[in-house]
Structure formats: structure tokens, C-alpha cells
């Protein structure tokens, strides 16, 4: 009798445990999750799409937001239509992705507003790219607030790509790209292939750290077309706000100096003929020293390797000739040095931003110099004497002579 009672009690205990212990406050079914793939944040400009003083929140297009102290930023998200990908559901939505946008005072309050019209739990753990609008980055206070919110959130990884959009980030997320329909993946794939040095990649963690440390950072630039996105050029942030842009060629040169450039092609002028030189390898050596007058010198040496990719059909000079190859090498050297010098000048004398973290390099490798210059590094950076040299080597010339 006793053992039956005991068994019954045990069984009861197990049943009770099954129901009481497995309870979970945080359970979210995977199909109830909205996997945000890209996040866009813009500064709200009243009247930008027709003004209505009444509605201060809500979906644009349904109710036009007006000027209000609560309307500070526009938050847009893109997420894949999981229903379509699974091929399930009574009515399969047509679009592979959906983009929505709302106006709100802060990112996370705006996010909550999405819950008035979206079904599911907005999940930021899979974000591939964060786009910030040009106007937002030009507003010091808003930009710093947004950066802090993004960095503080535990779902957003620190290594997600951050870009500044020329124009508005919302527009970038609402286009229908020709090549890869889902925008977050689209951006991520462009960044990952790195077939050119015309843009650089910086992630949220690097940008936030750099802005906190020195007040400035280079942020990759995104341009928005009808149905494509283009990542090229750089936005320069100094003293916590956007001060200007570097073009694609300048960005490429900046990356040569930074030693982060990928492969690329530069066309050099050889007596009136443009010869494309494919850069397959590039190494940069950097040296900082101080002369007897206390001036700081920076030596930059670029070691390049590559191939000649074209000349002119009418053969008046043989590409296999050593003298021609020397000439190409000299032209490549000249062009690379000129481009690097131009961007270095711009950073030193126009913007006054140390986008290459040369200060950090000095702190690490020349702590004695750093102790003297760290208090007014920005000024020292603009006064620094820079010597740039390049040494290009042609390795191959293609398959015809």
C-alpha cells in the first residue's frame, strides 16, 4: 500500500514538475519573429512628404506625421517574408521582403510603434547592415544618441556594417533591387566580395569606438539609385558630425594608406594611352620619426604588385619589353603617390581628421612621441610631415605580346 502511495506521489510530482518547471517567460516561436535584416535611421524633417499637423505617429502614408517634438527620427526596417520563404500560409505574400518605416523620438520607441501594425516579435540579432541618413549624421546630438542606442542593445552585434546614406536611409531600404531582393543580404554581399577599393567597410563597434576616442571616423557611403544601391566613397565625421565626403578615388587612396585596400584596377597614362594596371597585392609600410626640430615625420611606402591588362591594338611597342614595363611601373608609382598625397592633404588640411588612426599607431609603437603629442594630437596631425613613396612591380602582361 505504502509503495503504491509513494509511486502515486512520485507520478504526481513528475506531472507537476512538467507543467510548472518548463514554463518560460521568453518563449518566442521562430515563425513569430520578424528577422530585421537592415535598419535605417534618418532625421525627421517635417514636411518632407507633405505635412499634416494632426498625426504625430503612425505609418507614413496612412497618417502623415507633422512637426512635433516627439518626431525626431525616422526608423525603417527590412525583413524577409518568412511566410513566402516557407511557402506556407493561406495567402502567400507576393514580395520576398517587406519594408516599413515609422517616426518616433528614439529608435526603440519607434520600434515599439511597429507593433501596432506588424505581426510578430521584432528581432534585431540578424541585422546585416545599419544605414544612417546624411541629415542624421549632420546632427551631432541625434547621431550620438542613435550610436549609443545601437551599441547598447544586446541583440545588435558589434560587427554589423554601418553606412551613411547620401540622401535618406529610408529610400535605400524601400527600393526593389534588381540583383538580390532582400536588402540586408544585398548590402552584406557587396561588402564581403570586396572586389574594389572604392569603399571601405567599418562596423558599428569600430565607428563607435573611434568616435568616442577621437570624435571622428570615416564611415562608408551609400548611394541610392532607382533599383540598386551603390556603396562607394566615404563620409568623414569630425567632432561628432558629418563634415564632408571623400570620393571613390580618394577612398581608394585612403585605403592604400590604411593598408586595407582590396584588389583594384588603376589606369595609367603611358604617352597618351591609358593602360589598365590590375593591382593584385598591396602592402603598406609606415614609419614615424621625429627630427631634431621636434617635427614629426610620417613615411609611407607602398609595395604594389600587379598585371598589365591592356595596351593598344596597333603594336608600336612591345608589352614584353623591359623598358615598357619600367615605364608602366613608374607611371603607377606616380599615380598612386599623387592620389595618396591628395587624400592625405585633404585629411590634414581640409578636414583635419586622422582617419587612419595614425595617433593610435604612435601610441602603440612610439609611446615616447605619443606622450608629447597626445594632448593636441589633431593639431599635430595637421602639422605632420608626410612622405609617400610607391614601388610597383608588374608581374604579368596578359596572353598577347
Amino acid at each position, binding site marked *: 500500500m505504502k509503495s503504491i502511495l509513494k509511486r502515486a506521489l512520485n507520478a504526481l510530482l513528475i506531472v507537476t514538475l512538467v507543467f510548472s518547471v518548463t514554463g518560460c517567460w521568453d518563449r518566442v516561436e521562430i515563425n513569430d519573429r520578424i528577422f530585421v535584416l537592415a535598419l535605417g535611421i534618418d532625421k525627421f524633417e517635417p514636411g518632407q512628404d507633405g505635412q499634416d499637423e494632426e498625426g504625430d505617429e503612425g505609418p507614413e502614408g496612412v497618417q502623415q506625421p507633422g512637426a512635433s517634438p516627439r518626431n525626431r527620427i525616422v526608423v525603417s526596417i527590412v525583413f524577409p517574408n518568412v511566410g513566402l520563404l516557407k511557402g506556407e500560409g493561406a495567402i502567400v505574400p507576393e514580395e520576398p521582403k517587406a519594408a516599413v518605416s515609422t517616426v518616433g523620438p528614439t529608435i526603440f520607441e519607434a520600434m515599439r510603434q511597429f507593433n501596432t501594425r506588424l505581426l510578430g516579435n521584432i528581432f534585431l540579432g540578424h541585422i546585416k547592415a545599419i544605414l544612417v541618413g546624411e541629415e542624421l549624421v549632420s546632427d551631432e546630438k541625434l547621431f550620438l544618441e542613435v550610436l549609443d542606442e545601437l551599441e547598447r542593445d544586446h541583440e545588435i552585434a558589434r560587427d554589423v556594417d554601418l553606412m551613411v546614406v547620401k540622401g535618406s536611409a529610408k529610400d535605400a531600404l524601400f527600393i526593389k533591387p534588381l540583383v538580390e531582393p532582400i536588402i540586408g543580404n544585398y548590402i552584406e554581399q557587396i561588402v564581403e566580395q570586396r572586389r574594389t577599393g572604392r569603399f571601405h567597410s567599418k562596423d558599428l*563597434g569600430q565607428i563607435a569606438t573611434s568616435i568616442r576616442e577621437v570624435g571622428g571616423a570615416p564611415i562608408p557611403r551609400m548611394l541610392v539609385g532607382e533599383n540598386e544601391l551603390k556603396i562607394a566613397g566615404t563620409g568623414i565625421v569630425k567632432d561628432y558630425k558629418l563634415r564632408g565626403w571623400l570620393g571613390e578615388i580618394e577612398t581608394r587612396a585612403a585605403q592604400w594608406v590604411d593598408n586595407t585596400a582590396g584588389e583594384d584596377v588603376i589606369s595609367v597614362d603611358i604617352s597618351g594611352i591609358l593602360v589598365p594596371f590590375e593591382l593584385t597585392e598591396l602592402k603598406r609600410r609606415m614609419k614615424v620619426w621625429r627630427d631634431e626640430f621636434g617635427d614629426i615625420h610620417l613615411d609611407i611606402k607602398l609595395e604594389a604588385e600587379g598585371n598589365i591588362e591592356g595596351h593598344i591594338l596597333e603594336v608600336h611597342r612591345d608589352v614584353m619589353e623591359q623598358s615598357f614595363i619600367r615605364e608602366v611601373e613608374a607611371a603607377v608609382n606616380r599615380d598612386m603617390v599623387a592620389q595618396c598625397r591628395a587624400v592625405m592633404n585633404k585629411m590634414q588640411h581640409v578636414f583635419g581628421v586622422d582617419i587612419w588612426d595614425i595617433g593610435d599607431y604612435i601610441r*602603440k609603437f612610439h609611446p615616447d612621441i605619443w606622450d608629447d603629442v597626445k594632448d593636441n594630437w589633431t593639431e599635430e596631425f595637421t602639422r605632420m610631415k608626410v612622405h609617400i613613396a610607391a614601388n610597383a612591380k608588374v608581374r604579368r602582361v596578359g596572353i598577347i605580346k
Partner: protein
Amino acid sequence: MDNQEKITSNQLMAIMISLLIGIGIMSLPRTVTEAAGPDGWLLVPAGGVIVIITSVIISKLGLLFPGKTVVEYAGDVITKPLGLIFLLGLFVYFVIFCAFEARVLAEVTKQFLLDRTPTEALVITILLACAYLVRQDIATIGRMGEMLVPVFVIPTFLFLLPVIPQMDLTNLLPFMRTPPLKFLTGIGTTVTSFLGFETLLLFHPFMARPRDATKAMVTSLAAVTFMYTLVVIATMATFGMVGVQRIIWPAFSMYRVITVPGAFIENVHGVMMAIWVVAVYTTLAVFFFAAVILLSRLLGLKEHSFIVLPLAFLIYFLALVPGNISQVYSYLDAFSVYMGVPLCFILPVFIFIVARVRGMGDERGKGHEKYPKKGT
């Protein structure tokens, strides 16, 4: 004493490793970098050496009084009232430490994984799981350690590998530019992340071969020092000196940057989180066990299991005292410095010196002959 189960030297090592690796490792990269900048990682081996020396002294102290825990000999060495104060202090310290472990565990899991689960539920769950283990004897805890140590040690190293491409070791430069005084005070903050080794004061007589304790302690503490140093270096290399100082749990955030190429599920930090919960569980259980053993010996109890649950409730309420995460850490810092350092470093060494000066104890280790050598 003889009716108690004994632990082997391997089990002592497992207990120590599982005990030391707990809540500290997640914030350690931040605290050392705040203390000494790019030289922060050097503080870890420096602190480790101090801890190893102290633990050797504690195990020598144990050898002086064979078969006795600190509860029995503290009163003899530094007079009854002083000994009582020391033991009560140690007890309070163990209990509060348990409370911190439970609370930080709850805070971190709430932040990263379970935002809506109440703190109370998280604390109760882990405390009940520990209480179940603590009701057993030390041999069970030793076996648990042997089982669980690989569970959290191996992945900690394994998951460092995919982070390597993100690391920039120049972040550790410049080398040795910290002013010596700043460096020395920095060591003070590091040693607190090794707190837990002082439980040897209680565990020593449970050793099957007490003479092996010293070697086991040195080995396990060196292993922990190595692991801490590696994690600190990896974290600093990943985030840079300034980046690390901004992140509350840098070691976690480091595992957060791992992405498995091509996989849709790419956040390994969930796995790391679960593994870390195991590490905290073992820490909490051993501290809890130490508190229980100390109290039961102090009260002269023959059986310790029935004080476990009341103590669990005490720990539960203590864990909920701090109002927010910032309070948790400011209390924890004050607690480690003002209770941890005197109770674990200063007083044990003091007791050892007094015992030697007064010529007490069994210096030649004759008492150990009572304990025949068993195969370990």
C-alpha cells in the same frame, strides 16, 4: 572526520577550477584594462602569482593541523574570540559571495537571453539546483567538478579560434608603460577575481592525501591564470583598449562577434551563455557547500544537509538586495576589497605566521601517518 568521504587530488583541482571560473571572467577584461590600460593583461599573471603563494601558505597551514578544518584550529591559534570573529566573517563572506554569483548570473541571463523572466525565478532556479548538490558530501562535489570542468573549459578555448581573424594584437601595445604604482594597485583589483581558493581552509582535511594539496592548488590556479590571461588578451585584441572599457561584459561581447559563414543561425554567444551558466553553477555550489560546512562545524552538527535550504533562502533574499546592475557591481567591488582581501589573503597568512611563531601544529606532518596512503 573519518566517516567523511575523501577527495582525490584531481578532484580538488576540478573543484578549484570550477570554483574560480565564475562571474569574474566576464568582466575581468574591463577591470584590468581600467586599472592598467594596455598592460592590463599582465595584471592577471601577476595577480595569479600572489594567489598561488597565498594558496601554498594555506595548504601548509592545513598540513600543520592534520585532519582539522580552520573551524577547529582557528580558535586555538589566534584565541577563541578572534577566531570566532574570523570564522563568522568567513561564513558571512561565503553567503554573500553566493548571493552575488546568483544575482550576476540572473542579471546577465536577463540581459542577453531571458529579458522577460523575473530575476526571482532565475535566482530561485539556480539556488535550488545548487541546494540539491550541496546536500551531498564533498566527494560528490568533486565528481561533479571532474564532470563539468571540461564542459566549460574546452569551449572557452575552442570558441576563441573563430575570433582570431578579428583580433589585432597590436592593441596590447605599448608594452610596460604603466607607472609601477598604478600597476601594483591594479594587481589588487585582479586578485579578487581569484577569490574562492581560500575554501581550501575547509577542504584540506577532506583530501585523501593531504600532502598533494599544495601541488593540486598550484596546478589548478596556474591553469585558471592561464585561461584568464588568454581570455583577457583575446578580448583586448578584439576590441582595443578603449572598446573594452566601455563594455560591461567584454568577454561575452567577444563571443558575440563570431559568425559562422553561410549559416543563418550565426550567434554562437547563446551557446557560450549556456556554458557560462554551468561555470557559475559550479562556483555557486562550491561556495554554498563551503558556507554549509563552515556553519555545521561551527555549530558542531553531525549532519549538514538540513541547514542547506534555510541558507538557500537567506542567499535568495541577499541576492535581491541590490536595486540595479550598477549597485550590484559597486557592492561587489566593495565586498571583494573589504571582505575578500582581508579574509582570504591577510588573515590566513596571519594565522599561519602566528601558528609557526607559537610553534603550534604538527610541523613534521607526523599526524598524517594516521591516513594511510591510498591510490589516487
